[in-house]
């Protein structure tokens, strides 16, 4: 598989990197809290929690490293194989879930699905900023998915 590339402007990279610094530790926690760990078997539950915690931490590291290494303008993140691409997709999903749970739990699912169009000036600046980042992370995910499967959204 040829390497996959994600491009963004230098400004976008800076903004997203800053947000990631804030949200990444929480993203790991949210990802574990959201998990539906099976009840009734403490050993299985412990294994799940341990596995999800380890993965969430790894994802946070992966995102931080990828954005830190994306230099230039446009800033380009290069993913060398499918495993890296999948890990990156999961990491972006974790961040979007964390933003949803922690920053805008009050926004309805329907509004959130059209987050790109949601630019309500009555929202606090931080929330609008987080929504813009949420949309950007989604665009990066979509770009990556389309590179993996050009017919994914048909």
């Amino acid at each position, binding site marked *: 598989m040829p390497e996959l590339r994600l491009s963004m402007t230098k400004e976008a990279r800076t903004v997203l990197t800053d947000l990631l610094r804030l949200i990444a530790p929480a993203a790991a926690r949210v990802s574990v809290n959201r998990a539906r760990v099976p009840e009734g078997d403490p050993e299985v539950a412990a294994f799940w929690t341990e*596995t999800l915690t380890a993965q969430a931490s790894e994802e946070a590291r992966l995102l931080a490293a990828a954005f830190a290494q994306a230099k230039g303008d446009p800033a380009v993140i290069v993913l060398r194989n499918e495993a890296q691409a999948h890990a990156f997709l999961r990491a972006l999903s974790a961040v979007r879930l964390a933003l949803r749970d922690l920053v805008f739990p009050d926004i309805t699912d*329907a509004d*959130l*699905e059209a987050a790109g169009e949601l630019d309500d000036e009555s929202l606090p600046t931080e929330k609008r900023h987080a929504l813009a980042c949420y949309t950007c992370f989604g665009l990066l995910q979509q770009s990556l*998915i389309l590179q993996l499967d050009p017919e*994914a*959204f048909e």
Partner: protein
Amino acid sequence: MAKPKIKPEIKTETVVAPAPQWNVVVLNDPINFMGYVVVAFVSVLRISNGEAKKLMRLVHEEGRATVWTGDRERAELLALELQQWHLSAILEADA
């Protein structure tokens, strides 16, 4: 006259109950894109892209879909892997 004692013949047979089956069910969520769910299904369930799309549509339209049925151990593993993709995957005993 005493009646002859007849010992009733009792046959026993061991019947092995089939192992209970477990469903791995994925619930709809408003965060993950449809294409993302397809990539996750192909990767975790090792199914074709077409099958993954069918399952994804079921999740999207019905709110949930059973994506795999079988023994508990494997079901647990698949549910965990789907949760590693941040999908809302749960285990349910097959009725």
